[in-house]
């Protein structure tokens, strides 16, 4: 397949600062590894060495984040379950402590901007509250049950008879969280009416799009890497 692209895959020799300048959406990703700004012009490899991070792992995640069609399955499967679980836990924490409150804050201002008149905005607020509850519940399940189980299994601490093979994941396209977020954006773009502040509506749509994209990458790693690896461990 021949496609034009403005972007090239990121490599270890490239300055991490250059990558983040070009793709600011990677900033939350690297911060999940404990990397903060003020990077100077150190290469990705050098920054990772300073932080004792597996550069190959972080680069693979950065590239799968940028290129939705790029998915080096073999490379990803070579990483340790604990690396994957650690990364996925951190994305969950980021949703809970940062992105959800961020959307809520914008949404709260948007609802206020319509005064009491705009009933549709209140409905939108309720829709988002429902979404937040279901995402929070599934993160809670990950934290209490699923991730500890994955870690125990990979450490060989789960007896054969206690092993539970994971259920086949939904395809990324059918993920209920992603579909709900997409619906929310679509409803706002197509059907918002009455009095409201345009900039706040944009802020909400932008923030929703950004968590949606993050969850899509999270799901690709969870469904296509972690789940098959765990499944193989259960059978093995």
């Amino acid at each position, binding site marked *: 397949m*021949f*496609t*034009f692209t403005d972007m090239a895959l990121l490599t270890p020799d490239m300055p991490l600062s250059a990558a983040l300048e070009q793709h600011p959406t990677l900033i939350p990703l690297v911060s999940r590894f404990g990397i903060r700004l003020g990077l100077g012009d150190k290469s990705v490899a050098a920054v990772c060495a300073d932080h004792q991070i597996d550069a190959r792992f972080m680069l693979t995640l950065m590239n799968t984040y940028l290129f939705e069609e790029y998915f080096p399955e073999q490379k990803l499967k070579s990483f340790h379950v604990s690396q994957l679980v650690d990364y996925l836990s951190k994305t969950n924490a980021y949703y809970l402590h940062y992105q959800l409150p961020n959307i809520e804050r914008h949404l709260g201002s948007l609802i206020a901007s319509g005064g009491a008149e705009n009933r*549709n905005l209140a*409905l*939108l607020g*309720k*829709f988002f509250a*429902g*979404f937040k509850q279901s995402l929070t519940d599934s993160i809670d399940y990950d934290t209490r049950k699923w991730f500890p189980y994955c870690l125990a299994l990979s450490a060989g601490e789960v007896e054969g008879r206690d092993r539970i093979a994971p259920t086949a994941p939904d395809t990324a396209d059918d993920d*209920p969280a992603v*579909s*709900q977020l*997409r*619906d*929310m954006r*679509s*409803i706002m773009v*197509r*059907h918002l*009416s009455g009095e409201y502040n345009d900039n706040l509506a944009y802020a909400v749509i932008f923030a929703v799009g950004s968590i949606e994209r993050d969850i899509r990458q999270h799901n690709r790693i969870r469904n296509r890497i972690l789940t098959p690896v765990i499944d193989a461990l259960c059978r093995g």
Partner: protein
Amino acid sequence: MPRIALILPDLLQRAGMAAVLERYFAPVEVEQFGTADDTLRENGLFDVYFTDCAVFTANVDFFLPRRSQCVILVPDGSAALPGTETPRVIATGGTLEELLDHIGKVLVPVRSAAETPSDELSAREVQVLQLVVSGAINKEIADRLNISLNTVLTHRKNIAAKLGIKTISGLTLYALMHGYVSTEDINT
């Protein structure tokens, strides 16, 4: 989505054209052919055929009946045939801006013809929407409206396509916003 066939012997020209179409006119479905071979002939319906003079003249039997969908790429514009509407001729020797303008003139009508003009729900679809949102399952909707299960599925598919909304909670929000249901109608 417009289906486009590129029938160009030169690999680079073909790949370049495919890249331009996918980058600037997505979503499009592009299939590439080196010659007007059997695969192309059997491949059924394309909305537009991009080709060059040599291929066109060597395969007039195939292209002439489809000339209103054909576009002939030529190195420079002076070769354009005056007075003939079809097949259209596009010069590839000019600027990118000119090239995109010309391709756009060909593709935009194809695309808008393919799309359903209205996103208004029919009266029946509104009924189905109200039942879906109130928590009815497909079987109940079929019974209530006295239609088949398949018809319910078709309505649901059309509703999702017209509104651009997939989830039940999204449909609920839409129905509430438009007054198709009130909060009391919803169980959950």
